[in-house]
């Protein structure tokens, strides 16, 4: 059984942009265009402004494949993705959605839907994770990655688990697949 993970980059929210823009302007000097006068030299100036919106990026995700699973024990797979947020606080929320009915976290062989659970932590290699509910924004996490390309490596943990009881409902040799979509939103 295996399934894919979708990652969505550059999620932004406009309302938050405006609030941050006002705060950021307080520390910046004001500029305005000036015109040159005629003479041996002449100098004019142009004010330049740009607003960078809130942005986030999730990367480093890999497909999850459960193979040769012992149905007597719970199965789990963890990986270390990276989340970057450009807000001053580096905070973000995450929404996970499955490919089952009403975005449920389920795998299916076309007949039987097998549930799985999703956990998330804002540190790499975490063993204590926050359980995510499908379609529901998490509490705010703080990204530790300061580079959009996550050159520093993984800074989060994603864990997908299937309970032994659910494994026991799966038919051997059948392939169960699904997709988990993760959307991070800067805060």
């Amino acid at each position, binding site marked *: 059984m295996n399934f894919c993970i979708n990652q969505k980059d550059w999620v932004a929210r406009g309302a938050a942009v405006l609030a941050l*823009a006002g705060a950021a*302007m307080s520390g910046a000097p004001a500029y305005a265009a000036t015109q040159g006068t005629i003479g041996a*030299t*002449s*100098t004019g100036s*142009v*004010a330049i402004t740009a607003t*960078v919106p809130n942005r986030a990026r999730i990367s480093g995700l890999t497909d999850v494949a459960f193979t040769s699973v012992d149905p007597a024990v719970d199965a789990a797979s963890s990986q270390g993705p990276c989340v970057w947020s450009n807000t001053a606080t580096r905070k973000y929320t995450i929404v996970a959605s499955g490919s089952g009915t009403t975005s449920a976290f389920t795998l299916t062989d076309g007949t039987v839907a097998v549930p799985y659970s999703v956990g998330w932590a804002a540190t790499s290699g975490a063993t204590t994770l926050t359980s995510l509910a499908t379609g529901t924004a998490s509490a705010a996490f703080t990204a530790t990655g300061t580079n959009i390309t996550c050159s520093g490596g993984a800074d989060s943990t994603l864990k997908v688990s299937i309970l032994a009881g659910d494994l026991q409902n799966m038919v051997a040799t059948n392939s169960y697949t699904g997709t988990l979509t993760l959307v991070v939103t800067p805060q």
Partner: protein
Amino acid sequence: MKASNGARLRASAIRRIMTAFAVLMAAVLLPALAHAQQVRINRLNDIAFGTLAANGTSDAVLTDNLCAYTSALSLGYRVTARGSGSSSAFSLSNGGNTLAYVAQWASTPNATTGVQLTPNVAISATTSSTLNSQCLLGSGANATLIVRLPAANVAGVTAGTYSGSISITIAPN
């Protein structure tokens, strides 16, 4: 022999007078001619990018049509730009973070590309119109300032509003 010496003396005196006159004229006229070469830059407008695209995959580019006037017979002028960043860098600031941009100059209006400017380094340009110092005739502009925010520069910066200025000095060339 006396007449010949007198002629030489007169010729010598005339040469000295002409030389003195030439020196005098040069002293008087050259500064006046230099002073006559005047320039003016005007019709500048602020450049406001607004809120940049959230996906940030493309450079943001804006241009400003302006008027660069020179009275030099060559129609040439030099352009020197200075940004408001540290050491005149072309960078914007939100008070704590900086956002670098690229500036270009074109000696025609409505240009989309031009000669890349370096802070405090003059480039040469030639005006396309010297009818008057305010470009009152024609399109009203004869040059373009192009400002580019590379997507790569925008990608990693902290959210917020960034501002700055670019100062442009022109001189006869």
